[in-house]
C-alpha cells in the first residue's frame, strides 16, 4: 500500500519535473509545476510530516503555483514567441552529467549509509504542535530574522513597483 503510493507520487514528481523542463506549451508546464508541488506534499505526508504537508500545499500550491500562473497568463506567452533553443538537447545531457555525482553522493549518504536501521519515530513527530514548539522554543531568533528578511523583500517589491511615479526617497 505505502510502496504503491510512494511509487505513484514519485512518478508524478518525476513526470512533472520532466514536463517543466521539456514542454514548450505554457499551460502544460504550469500543470507539471502543480503536479510536482502536490507530489512533494504527498511525499511529506507519507513521512508522517503533517505540518510540512500542509505548509507545502498551502504555500507551495496556494501561493507559489497560483501566483506563478497568474504571472505567466498575464504576460500571455505564445509558443511561437519563445526563443529558439537548438542546443537544448546537448545542454540537458551535459547538465545531467554534471549533476550525476551529486546524485551518487545523496545515494551514498542517505540510502547506503543506513541500510535497514532507520530511527523509530517519536510520539507526535512532525505534527503541527511539535513543529510549533521547536520553532518557537529553540529557533525563535532565526525564525524572527527570517520574517525580517521577508519584510525587507516586500518593501523592495513595493519600492520597485512605485518607481514609475518618480518616487523620491529624499523628500
Amino acid at each position: 500500500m505505502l510502496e504503491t503510493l510512494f511509487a505513484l507520487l514519485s512518478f508524478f514528481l518525476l513526470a512533472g519535473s520532466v514536463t517543466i523542463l521539456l514542454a514548450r506549451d505554457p499551460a502544460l508546464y504550469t500543470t507539471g509545476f502543480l503536479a510536482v508541488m502536490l507530489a512533494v506534499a504527498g511525499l511529506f505526508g507519507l513521512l508522517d510530516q503533517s505540518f510540512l504537508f500542509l505548509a507545502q500545499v498551502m504555500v507551495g500550491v496556494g501561493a507559489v503555483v497560483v501566483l506563478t500562473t497568474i504571472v505567466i497568463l498575464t504576460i500571455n506567452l505564445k509558443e511561437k514567441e519563445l526563443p529558439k533553443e537548438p542546443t537544448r538537447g546537448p545542454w540537458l545531457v551535459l547538465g545531467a552529467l554534471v549533476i550525476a555525482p551529486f546524485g551518487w553522493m545523496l545515494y551514498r549518504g542517505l540510502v547506503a549509509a543506513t541500510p535497514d536501521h532507520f530511527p523509530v519515530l517519536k510520539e507526535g513527530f512532525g505534527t503541527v504542535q511539535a513543529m510549533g514548539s521547536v520553532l518557537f522554543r529553540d529557533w525563535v531568533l532565526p525564525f524572527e530574522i527570517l520574517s525580517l528578511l521577508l519584510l525587507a523583500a516586500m518593501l523592495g517589491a513595493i519600492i520597485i513597483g512605485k518607481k514609475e511615479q518618480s518616487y523620491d526617497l529624499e523628500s
Partner: protein
Amino acid sequence: MSTPAILVTLAVIVLAALLALLMIPVLVWLERRVCGLIQDRLGPNRTNVFGFRLGGVVQSFADVLKLVFKEEYYPGHISRGRWLFIIAPMITFASALLAFMVIPFADDVVVYGEKLRIQALPIDYGILWYLAIGSVGIMGMILGGWLSHNKYSLLGALRGASQLVSYELALGLGVVSMILTYGTIDFNAMVHWQSDMVLGFLPAWGALVQPLAAVIVIVALFVETNRAPFSVAEGESEIVAGYFTEYSAMKFAMYFMGEYIAMNTASAVIITMFFGGYQLPWISTETLREHFGAIAWVLIVVLPVAVALFIRWMKRNNTVRPTVATDGGRNFETKILSRVLIAMTVVIELILLILSFLPADSVGTSFAVTLLQIAVFVAKLMVFNIFFIVVRWTLPRFRYDQVQTLGWRYLLPLSLLNIFVTAIIVVGVAS
C-alpha cells in the same frame, strides 16, 4: 481493526460522500425554489416521475440527464491539450469534495475498545486541511479561464484568483483568532470546546464568544465559494460567464457541482467553528449518553406531532388551483407520501421505544446518540445552506473595487485587531 470498526469507518466515508454529492440536486432545487419565492413566483415544480414531483426536486435529476446527454462541444481553438482543458473543472470539483471530508458529523464513538472519529478523513488538523485544499481549488478556476483562450474567461479567472488570494488573508487571520480561543486545530476538539457554557447560561458557541471573528470568517467563506455577492468571477452582466464561458455539458456541470459542494463545505465549516457543530445547544455528548432515555421519550412525543403537521400542510398546499378541474395526480402523490411518512414514523417510534430502555453505557445508546448528532448536523447544515441561498438572491453583486476594498481595508485590519484582543484575553485568562 475489528470488523465492526471497519464497518463503522466505511459507513462514515459513504455518509460523507452522500452528504456531499446527494446534497447537490437538493441544493440546486432549493436555490431555484427560494429564488422563486424571493422573486414572487413558484420556481420549478412540474417535472415528475410517475406523478411524483416531490416539490420539484425531480427537476434537478432531469437537468443532470440533459447535461449528460448534451453534445461534447469544444471551441475550435482548443485543438491540442484537450485533456488539460478537461482537467481544470476536475481540480475544482475534486478539491471541493476533499475539503468536505474532514468535517466531523458526530462525536467519537468507542467500538470494542477502539476510538473512531465520525469523520471521513480521520485527521486532527481539520481546519488547516480545509484552508490548504481550498487553495488548490483556485488552480482549477485559473487553468479553466486561461485554457479557454478567451478574453472574458481570462478576466473572470484573474478576478476570481485575485479575490480569493486577497480574502485568504482575512480568512486565515480570522481562523487564527479562533485557534487561539479554542487552543486546537482539530474540528472535533473545537466542537467539544463549544459544548460548554459561557456566562452561565449561553452555549459557548464560537459566534457568541467571538462575534467579530465569526463575521470576518463567514464573509471570507462567501468569497471562498465564489457566490454572490462576491461572484465577480462570473459576472454575467459584464463578462458573459467568466472563467467557464467556453465550458459546456458535463464539463460545465463539474464547475457547477463544485460550487455547490464548496457552499455545502463552507456551511459545514461555519457550523463546526461557530455554531456548535453537531451538538445541540446546552447538551454535551456525555449528557446525551446519560439521559438518552429521557431524550428518546421527548422525540417519541414530538415526532408524530411534527409529521402530522407536515402532512396537513402537504394536503393543503400540494394541490392545483381549485379552478382547474383535473388535479393531475397531485392528490395521489400526497396520499402515497403521507402513508410512507406515517409508516416511517411508526418504525422510528418503535426503535426509539426500544432504545429508551437500554442502559446508558450500552453500544446501542452510543450509536443512537451518534445518529441523533448526525441528524442535528444535517439540520444545521440545511439552515446555513438556505442562508447562503437567501443572501445570494437578496444582495446585488459587488463591484470589483468594492470587493477589494472590503477585503483589504476593512476585514484585514479588523482580523488583525481581533487577533491582538484575543491573544491578550487568552493570556490574561491563563495567567
